[in-house]
């Protein structure tokens, strides 16, 4: 575009039929014609740039919107929700005048192109979303998916992604308190990097992205604008990237965590002094997004002089300035008489801040460049009235076959020796193995409020030292379950995240989600997406935990083969007294080990079928939300009363893996007696949902059992903790010395990534 002289509104009127590169910018013809209709003329090249990024899949949710609506329509009534979907992130009231905001977002494709920077800037982006709500970011989690551990490219992508998440998050001083790591063939070339950030603010301190008050100043502050990710929003994030229209512009965005750290402190000081009317982070679609969204949500108009934007690269054209995704930038709306104070705070933190415009009530977003009018449009048409598609939906042809081949005939271990070998093998399989090679690269201690962190089921941070109130959060998602049944798969992810939060003793309050799927233009993928959204919305309604926000990532596929449909669900809960939280893992000698819930012969999508037989088929485990709620109520009471000294949820690998992890957590042994009459293989390796392993001091057994009975929660005493003998002993089945077990469990990742 830069070859041409600046295209002005005047020129657009004078030369209505000029040919425009809308296709190259990812706009369909009817979308382009609609823009002409909205404007009553052809767009200028700058306006075209704005519409192209704002109407991209990534920013407009044009394929997903009709489905995401359900989250609002089916949202359960709760007075905890201060800000719902549609803002940068949802805000939840957690009591004592405190509120918490949290959201998860994907940075998948950039993390494939340049793992370190892609993952780093992914963290940077979600942290700014949280900051924008007026909150201090207090923790991050990362949910990751990679190709097979042995795959060549995994050796490049995984270490880079992990170093990037750590490099950025550690430098911001945000404890990393949780996440997930899974491996599957479909993620080769399509790694998933979903980052979640939690922030805390006073309930009356919520900031919104609106430009109110005609005459107020529009301030751009933070990093200078460079040619980063130009077309990124419309290309990198929403169509296979070889279509990218590339010039001598960065192929990769480099994060500057130090710039973001000072930006955070600067913003928090600005919020504390109440110096902004509205604020918006610059993420995808940069200035285009910030100006149109702020104006549309506020007084309706804005005048901007693009010449005033501080540039890192002086050769940028106005179109490129509008599309630039340069990191570590924010836009604030400030009353004229607060401006000086605002700029002083920025100066204190050495943050560049520049007034680039003024709020108006003209209903138009107007921009000038070199004194000429280059943009004049109704901001709502770009920010809100983007195209909405009813993409064709079709159940995949192979879905029935996939479900019918349920693996009933897969050879199962027949005796103790075979079961022992199977349990050892699973413990060392990539999806179940120790992840500390990854989590030890993240700072878990900074801020001094981390109560629970990996490998705990949920992360738990203290919000307030005086009240000891805290929040717990967990992310979960199982692509294999979702592939077998997207509706159930999304609900299983929700159920597990809910359970993980609940068993710490926290009360689950709200949900965020990141929906990672293939191409929405593939009706089979769209079916998976629609089913997953429906399942999640129904599940949230049943559990009474509203979806407060999230993110959609489409086009995660290689050629025509999409990734496993991977909805990643984040659940946030509150605990009144963090000192009462329930940790994971055996610690107290003679504590009685109870299995809560029911075990059925459920191996569809199981880790056993996959790791041992490379098989995927059948139905995923059944979901029972009332059971999950019973578990939550029992564990909340148990935490309050101090009845249990440890709890761990059963997931991939079933009871066996839960026992392995509970023993290895503190190198404490256990003696287990499986219920007679049952099939040891099913008891040990089934992945039935709604189950938890707890250890109960003898003293409290009666109360605890009574509590379970009162909630119709099956509670089976299956063993006892043994501090003296470091062995996992399953009576009559096998004995696993913890040393041998730890070796198998912890060797896998270091062996792969050792240099």
């Amino acid at each position, binding site marked *: 575009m830069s070859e041409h002289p600046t295209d002005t509104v005047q020129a657009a009127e004078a030369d209505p039929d000029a040919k425009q590169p809308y296709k190259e910018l990812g706009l369909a013809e009817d979308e382009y014609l609609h823009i002409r209709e909205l404007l009553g003329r052809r767009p200028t090249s700058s306006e075209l740039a704005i519409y192209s990024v704002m109407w991209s899949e990534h920013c407009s949710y044009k394929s997903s919107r009709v489905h995401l609506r359900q989250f609002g329509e089916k949202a359960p009534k709760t007075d905890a929700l201060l800000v719902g979907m549609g803002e940068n992130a949802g805000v939840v009231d957690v009591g004592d005048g405190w509120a918490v905001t949290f959201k998860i977002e994907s940075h998948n494709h950039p993390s494939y192109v340049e793992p370190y920077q892609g993952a780093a800037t992914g963290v940077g982006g979600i942290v700014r979303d949280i900051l924008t709500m007026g909150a201090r970011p207090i923790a991050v989690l990362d949910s990751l998916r990679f190709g097979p551990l042995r795959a060549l490219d995994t050796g490049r992508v995984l270490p880079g992604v992990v170093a990037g998440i750590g490099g950025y998050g550690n430098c911001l001083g945000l404890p990393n308190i949780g996440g997930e790591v899974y491996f599957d063939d479909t993620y080769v070339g399509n790694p998933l990097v979903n980052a979640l950030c939690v922030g805390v603010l006073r309930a009356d301190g919520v900031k919104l992205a609106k430009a109110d008050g005609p005459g107020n100043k529009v301030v751009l502050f933070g990093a200078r604008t460079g040619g980063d990710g130009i077309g990124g929003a419309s290309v990198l994030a929403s169509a296979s990237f070889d279509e990218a229209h590339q010039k001598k512009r960065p192929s990769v965005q480099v994060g500057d965590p130090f710039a973001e750290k000072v930006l955070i402190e600067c913003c928090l000081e600005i919020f504390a002094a109440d110096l902004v009317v509205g604020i918006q982070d610059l993420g995808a679609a940069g200035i285009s997004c910030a100006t149109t969204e702020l104006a549309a949500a506020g007084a309706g108009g804005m005048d901007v002089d693009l010449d005033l934007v501080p540039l890192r690269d002086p050769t940028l054209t106005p179109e490129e300035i509008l599309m630039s995704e340069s990191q570590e930038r924010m836009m604030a709306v400030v009353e004229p008489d607060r401006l000086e104070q605002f700029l002083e705070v920025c100066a204190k933190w050495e943050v560049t801040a520049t007034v680039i415009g003024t709020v108006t009530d003209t209903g138009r977003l107007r921009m000038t460049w070199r004194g000429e009018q280059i943009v004049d449009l109704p901001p709502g048409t770009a920010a809100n009235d983007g195209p909405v598609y009813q993409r064709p939906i079709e159940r995949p042809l192979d879905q029935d076959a996939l479900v019918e081949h349920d693996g009933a005939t897969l050879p199962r271990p027949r005796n103790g020796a075979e079961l022992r070998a199977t349990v050892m093998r699973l413990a060392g399989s990539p999806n179940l193995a120790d992840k500390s090679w990854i989590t030890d690269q993240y700072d878990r201690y900074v801020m001094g409020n981390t*109560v629970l962190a990996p490998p705990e089921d949920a992360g738990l941070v203290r919000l307030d030292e005086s009240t000891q109130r805290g929040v717990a959060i967990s992310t979960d998602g199982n692509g294999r379950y979702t592939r077998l049944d997207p509706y159930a798969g999304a609900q299983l992810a929700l159920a597990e995240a809910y359970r993980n939060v609940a068993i710490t003793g926290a009360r689950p309050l709200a949900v965020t989600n990141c929906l990672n799927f293939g191409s929405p233009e593939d009706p089979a993928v769209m079916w998976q997406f629609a089913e997953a959204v429906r399942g999640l919305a129904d599940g949230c309604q049943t559990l009474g935990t509203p979806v407060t926000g999230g993110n959609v990532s489409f086009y995660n596929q290689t050629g025509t083969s999409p990734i496993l449909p991977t909805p990643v669900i984040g659940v946030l809960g509150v605990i009144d007294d963090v000192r009462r939280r329930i940790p994971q893992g055996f610690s107290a000698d003679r504590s009685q080990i109870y299995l809560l819930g029911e075990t059925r012969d459920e191996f569809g999508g199981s880790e056993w079928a996959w790791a041992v037989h490379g098989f995927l088929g059948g139905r995923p485990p059944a979901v029972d939300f009332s059971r999950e709620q019973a578990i939550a109520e029992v564990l909340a009471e148990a935490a309050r009363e101090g009845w249990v000294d440890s709890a761990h949820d059963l997931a991939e690998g079933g009871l066996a893996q839960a026992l392995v992890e509970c023993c290895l957590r503190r190198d404490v042994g256990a003696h287990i007696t499986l219920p007679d009459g049952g099939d040891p293989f099913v008891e040990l390796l089934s992945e039935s949902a709604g189950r938890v392993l707890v250890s109960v001091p003898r003293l409290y057994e009666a109360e605890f059992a009574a509590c379970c009975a009162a909630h119709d929660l099956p509670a089976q005493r299956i063993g006892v903790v043994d501090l003296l003998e470091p062995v996992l002993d399953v009576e009559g089945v096998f004995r696993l010395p913890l040393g041998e077990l730890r070796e198998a469990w912890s060797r896998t990742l270091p062996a792969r990534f050792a240099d």
Partner: protein
Amino acid sequence: MPRVGVVTFPGSLDDRDAARAIRVAGAEAVPLWHADPELHDVDAVVLPGGFSYGDYLRCGAIARFSPVMQSITAAARDGLPVLGICNGFQVLCEAHLLPGALVRNDSRKFVCRDQLLRVENAATAWTSAYEQGQDVVVPLKNGEGAYVADKRTLAELEGEGRVVVRYLNGNPNGSYHDIAGITNEAGNVVGLMPHPEHAVEELTGPGTDGLGFFLSVAGLAAGAAR
């Protein structure tokens, strides 16, 4: 009540934690700002952990030139107790208040773990609350924590008993002589890579073994005040 200053540089992260540890130790935490040379007559100073100036160029290389460091350097030479934790240790080395330097971990990865240490010098301003030879567990978290120095300096440090804390059960980062922390000749300036401020509460750390650093200086300052 003893007053202990905590410096905040742009990019400091564990300044709040250090202030909390100082309060837990019964002293008053006084915030000091990198751009302000005024030390507000504190009895001691902590340079906290973090990534001052993003750890760009070299950890601590840029922070070292801040106005507050000019005052601290002068005061330290006159005996003001100064503790540098992690990034603070790096700043002290860059400022030549302590010998040697800290370079990239030999693993070439950031490492966060609970680290067993031995207190080898319990006579400094910051370790008097410990027993000589006491073993403590304190979180370690850094990417550039390998202590290096030339042979002469190492011999000097060892010879004069100026190695304050040493890593036990495995060297986490390639530090020469397993050195985790050192002191100056006078014993008022101490730097270490592990984070004692993250081990002052059972709830949020591996234990309370780190509290001694802050109790030491609090007691010292209280004594001086009396």
